[in-house]
């Protein structure tokens, strides 16, 4: 018994010691905790910023969660987090909840993201689709079962649909822009919160169609094909200059005003807007115009 106890104690002490060693930063740096949660789409950007900010401020603790835009707001409006990553604007009921709890927030745009509508590489019949056709395919109670139901010249084969699950901001945005109402969609498609699952689904099925963030398409452009929407191809340029409509959107962070009074949060947000241009590109998203970042910086001064 005593051996066991010793073994247990030794391992506890070892973990504790390891934790201490790992955290002995030396340089003068900001201290404190910054808590971020929210959209998994925005996560790669925030993670990149946090990684760089941490390098300059080794004693600072930054934690980033990925509860989804809505899940993150649930924590944000009760004051659990300082910053919420969001792939859509805050909803009225979320803002009302925040007000109840005396939480005021600042909205900052940080990047653009496009939603790519994709099909299999071997799909030879389609390279261009209209928003009306997309709606016909994806709307609730859609009667489209075969590709030929969309355009008669397309093959008489069942169309297999892949899309993000209901917690995703991408889902909210796509349903609103294509079907006209947020969360309104047919129910018989394969849903996954993991975009790589959707990529694999479309890549492995000649008669598949799916949609997800442009970053996931670009990384897998050798396996799948993105469709032009109303004749416009989804690229960095078309998203940035707004011609890729309606499936491009800004990504946001929301900062609680109270948190912004803390120097570490203020510096972090400043750093975010200053570095965003460079880091956003690196993680596969599209940066805003310089003037928009400057607008954001002016807001927090």
């Amino acid at each position: 018994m005593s051996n066991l106890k010793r073994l247990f104690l030794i391992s506890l002490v070892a973990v504790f010691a390891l934790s201490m060693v790992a955290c002995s930063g030396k340089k003068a740096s900001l201290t404190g905790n910054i808590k971020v949660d929210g959209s998994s789409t925005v996560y790669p950007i925030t993670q990149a910023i946090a990684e760089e900010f941490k390098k300059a401020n080794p004693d600072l603790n930054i934690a980033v969660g990925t509860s989804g835009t809505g899940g993150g707001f649930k924590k944000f409006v009760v004051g659990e987090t300082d910053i919420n990553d969001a792939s859509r604007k805050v909803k009225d009921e979320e803002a009302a909840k925040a007000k109840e709890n005396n939480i005021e927030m600042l909205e900052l745009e940080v990047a653009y993201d496009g939603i790519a509508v994709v099909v299999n590489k071997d799909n030879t019949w389609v390279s261009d689709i209209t928003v009306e056709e997309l709606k016909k395919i994806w709307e609730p109670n859609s009667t489209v079962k075969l590709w030929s139901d969309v355009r008669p010249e397309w093959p008489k084969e069942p169309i297999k649909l892949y899309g993000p699950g209901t917690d995703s901001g991408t889902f909210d945005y796509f349903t609103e822009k294509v079907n006209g109402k947020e969360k309104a969609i047919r129910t018989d498609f394969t849903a996954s919160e993991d975009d790589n699952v959707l990529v694999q689904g479309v890549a492995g099925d000649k008669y598949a169609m799916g949609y997800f963030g442009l970053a996931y398409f670009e990384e897998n452009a050798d396996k799948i094909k993105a469709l032009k929407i109303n004749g416009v191809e989804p690229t960095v340029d078309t998203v940035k200059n707004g011609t890729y409509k309606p499936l491009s959107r800004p990504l946001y962070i929301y900062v609680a005003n109270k948190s912004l009074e803390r120097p570490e949060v203020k510096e972090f947000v400043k750093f975010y807007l200053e570095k965003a241009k460079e880091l956003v590109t690196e993680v596969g998203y599209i940066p805003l115009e310089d003037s928009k970042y400057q607008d954001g910086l002016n807001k927090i001064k």
Partner: protein
Amino acid sequence: MDNKELQRIKSRKLKNSVFHGLIFFCTIFGVIVLALLLYDILKKGLPWLTIDFLTNFPSRFPKKSGIFPGLLGSLWIILLTAALAFPVGVGTAIYLEEYAKENRFTEFIKLNIANLAGVPSIIYGMLGLAVFVRALSMGRSVLAASFTMALLILPIIIISSQEAIRSVPSALKQASFALGTTKWQTVTGVILPYALPGILTGTILAISRALGEAAPLIVVGALTYVSFIPKTPLDQFTTLPIQIFNWSSMPKREFQNVAAAGIIILLGILLLANSTAIILRDKYQIKIKD
């Protein structure tokens, strides 16, 4: 023997060998799937498995990504979970097997424990969120996660400890009582040492299960990226399975390999835990025989 009889023997032998083959295939099937899985993971993950991978923090660059916070987070939680669940679990088992009267109430408790062992882990996560994170205001901390995990594995520890205690020969117990010992002396002097290998095996297997759990921890509030290591049980955390899950859903394809490297680490720890269980069991078993 006439022809008919020979034919019947032949068909029976055929049936025999068909079933032999079928059952053999069933056995091999699991092994083949496991081997394929291991091959895939090792092929993808091994080249990425470096010392840096163990000591780095997660990064936007797959090459610089590391699993350190997840590793430490998991170790913290596992040790605290063990410290919480082991005494309570073994205590409950001793009470149920040695002290409790055999009445409806005891039966009711036993039935409930058996049922709890089958409750999906996400339910424990919701319970943890309501009770530990919110009501007891532990926050989204290592401590709240450990309490939740302790609840999750408690039924398994209790049931395996009960089995172990029940396997103590009654001759040993009666011999002890015959020497005039109290019940407590018999429990600590005879029953526990004899049952310890079984109790330990059950506990370590239960802890291995907790190590691989992600669902309840996500509900309790494990994070995806933490730039620090939990220093006290009240700090925020992330764990191995959550890190792995996050990497597997990143857009950059190289992160799939990072995820595979993470899986190798997780498998390594599980293997280590299980072999510890076996070593401890063997060690204590020999002692008793002497």
